């Protein structure tokens, strides 16, 4: 299947480039003086966070359009984006505490940004569980579209939580009004990492979409065969 092969190639290129980002981040990017080497976690944590949030926004948008058009491709895309978003959200929720322990002195605190991100992860897990629990495809698509739209509505709260609540979490230094507050070489590494995470998101979603399509086709063939048997 062509789409599956394309997705695999994009993913493979993304993983090779990720190794390049590792080399650049570890060997060719200066060490931040106050945080030490732990600051380099930022090059993986922030792009993963951006794509964890973007994936949910795309789930929500495709869900809105699905409810109007009932196009199964939109539902398939939402399911794919949600699964990939769960993976990126898991990266955010594991790399964050690994950075927090040496910098804040604790693995976890019930800070607004952290709590909202955990809530996003739970929404993703709930979305996937819901899809697994409803056998009827039309009902599954409709219920999960509603949950996907709710998930999308949570994303602005994650981004704005550092402005809305007193928080330990660092303020945005790249995605903020005005110029990024990062030195040039650090910004280049961060942008490269963001590009690689974008590529990985696309590669994963294309593969996951193709997989869903393949399964639906196989189910349709199976049902057709079974129906033929009865007739």
């Amino acid at each position: 299947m062509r789409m599956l092969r394309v997705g695999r190639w994009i993913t493979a290129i993304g993983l090779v480039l990720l190794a390049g980002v590792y080399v650049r981040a570890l060997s060719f990017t200066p060490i931040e003086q106050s945080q030490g080497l732990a600051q380099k976690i930022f090059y993986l944590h922030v792009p993963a966070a951006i794509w964890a949030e973007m994936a949910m926004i795309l789930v929500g948008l495709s869900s809105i359009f699905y409810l109007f058009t009932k196009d199964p491709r939109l539902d398939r895309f939402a399911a794919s984006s949600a699964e990939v978003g769960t993976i990126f959200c898991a990266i955010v929720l594991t790399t964050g505490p690994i950075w927090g322990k040496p910098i804040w002195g604790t693995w976890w605190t019930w800070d607004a940004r952290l709590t909202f991100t955990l809530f996003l992860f739970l929404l993703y897990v709930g979305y996937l569980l819901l899809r697994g629990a409803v056998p009827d495809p039309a009902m599954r698509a409709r219920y999960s579209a509603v949950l996907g739209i709710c998930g999308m509505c949570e994303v602005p709260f994650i981004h704005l939580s550092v402005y809305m609540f007193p928080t330990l979490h660092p303020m945005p230094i790249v995605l903020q009004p005005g110029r990024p507050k990062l030195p040039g070489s650090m910004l280049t590494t961060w942008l490269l990492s963001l590009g690689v995470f974008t590529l990985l998101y696309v590669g994963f979603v294309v593969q996951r979409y193709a997989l869903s399509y393949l399964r639906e086709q196989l189910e349709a063939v199976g049902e057709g065969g079974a129906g033929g048997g009865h007739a």
Partner: protein
Amino acid sequence: MPENGNYMIAAYILVGVILVGYAVSLYLRARRSLRP
């Protein structure tokens, strides 16, 4: 400068494992679906 390189190494290994693991899982699921 604080000595916390081991945290950075742990995070980098973890991210690699999660991403490669998911890529392998997609590959295996697709192969299983394509099997006659």
